[in-house]
């Protein structure tokens, strides 16, 4: 170097991945499933867009949230939707949720040596009518759970969910009975508070919140109708139903 110091040998290489921030979360109820994600897409200290959806409706009973590298996330959702359409034409029915989960695993592992840099969370209603959440790592390892948070603010949100959904670190008083599954209004409050709190303390979270609610067939939409800004996305008339709720988050 001109100043007499020695630089280490360098080799420049194209880095195919980047991190676009954001956070997603999903919670399974007894006969419903809630899948939410913020809408901010960022890179470094810049905001690329304040509205880039990360949660997508696949079928009337399955919703997929993708987070990590947005280009891979968006392409992966497109490919999953294509596979579901092939299945629909071949079998004359929608793919069951547990099958979609297995399909996602094989699609991710197929790219084991040049992975989709995405953390997927699949939520929806199983064949038996129960709410389900499946979470995946970038190369396809997956597990069914009651709740999962992923993305930038995962370390802030998951402990909160562990405490409020699984009641971890809370001593159960003898008289008190703990429900296995929380009711929908409580779950929605927890989701909204998770995101407002994550927005406060994580710079990559904010702008907007999109919450998808999947209700099992036969479960009435009572209580949901009154929710401010709710919108139904279901296409069929007598099956599982999908709703979306949008909220603003802080934009700083």
């Amino acid at each position, binding site marked *: 170097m001109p100043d007499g110091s020695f630089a280490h040998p360098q080799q420049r290489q194209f880095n195919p991945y980047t991190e676009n921030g954001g956070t997603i979360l999903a919670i399974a109820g007894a006969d419903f499933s809630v899948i939410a994600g913020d809408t901010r897409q*960022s890179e*470094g*200290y*810049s*905001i690329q867009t304040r509205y880039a959806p990360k949660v997508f409706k696949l079928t009337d009973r399955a919703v997929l949230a993708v987070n990590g590298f947005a280009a891979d996330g968006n392409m992966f959702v497109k490919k999953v939707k294509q596979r579901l359409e092939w299945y629909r034409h071949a079998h004359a029915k929608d793919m069951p949720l547990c099958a979609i989960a297995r399909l996602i695993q094989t699609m991710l592992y197929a790219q084991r040596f040049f992975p989709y840099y995405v953390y997927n969370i699949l939520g929806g209603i199983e064949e038996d009518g129960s709410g389900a959440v499946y979470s995946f790592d970038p190369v396809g390892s997956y597990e069914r759970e009651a709740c999962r948070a992923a993305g*930038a603010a995962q370390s802030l949100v998951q402990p909160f969910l562990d405490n*409020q959904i699984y009641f971890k670190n*809370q*001593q159960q*008083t003898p008289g008190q009975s703990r429900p296995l599954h929380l009711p929908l209004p*409580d779950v*929605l*409050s*927890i989701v*909204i*508070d998770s995101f*407002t709190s994550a927005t*406060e*303390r*994580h*710079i*990559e979270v904010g702008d907007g919140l999109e919450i998808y609610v999947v209700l099992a067939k036969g479960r009435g939409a009572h209580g949901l109708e009154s929710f401010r800004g709710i919108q139904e996305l279901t296409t069929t008339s007598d099956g599982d139903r999908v709703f979306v709720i949008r909220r603003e988050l*802080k*934009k*700083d």
Partner: protein
Amino acid sequence: MNSVYNGTGFDFTNSIRNTFLQDRGLPLPKATSTGTTIVGCLFKDGIVLGADTRATEGPIVADKNCEKIHYISESIRCCGAGTAADTEFTTALIASNIEMHALSTGRKPRVVTAMTMLKQMLFRYQGQVGAALVLGGVDATGPQLFTIHPHGSTDKLPYVTMGSGSLAAMAVFESGWKPGMTREEALQLVTAAISAGIFNDLGSGSNVDACVITADHTEMLRNFVRPNERVQKERSYKFARGTTAWKKEDIRSLIVSEDVVTREGGEEMDTS
């Protein structure tokens, strides 16, 4: 044999070990950085300084409402961006030295004096002190505005911005600054510039702090604008008594015996 007395300057005895660890993959711990948008603007009667209030540790917000406009003297203030500890201690040191200097010279301190002290200290540390400053004030020679970089270079300008949000703020300044603005116009411009940083830069956020310095008066406007108040939470997460289990309970009274004696015309205890 290493001397116990280290003298002035930084102690670099850990640097060999640190580079070794970094090469092995251990990341350096993140210092609290102010991310930041800070600005300074000259107007008809003096200087307006502005700053956001977010302090970050990597991608996490460490402080949602910190103060980035530091006191140097009655009519001189300094905004700080970069490593929070560095801006804090650097400005405090120079403020102290300026006060001593003012007493020694018998004159009101000048902005160039503070600027020279700051730049000479930062240059001495060769950029290791990560303080990027916007120094502004009014002295016997008139209103002055300077920008000081971590390596010790300075610029004297009518409007300046520093920090990760400096580009967003400067875009506003370049569109809107004109010479001879009124106090209201200058405050509005500074607010717009800081807001541009707050909303478009992830390293800046929360509230707008401002400071108006004129020849006879300095007005500190803490939280001048608060565009990011937290909405009320959906639920209360208060825990019922007994949620945290306890194995043993031991209540001790620290009072063995107590005699209360009321005095005639007693004076109240001085609690000032």
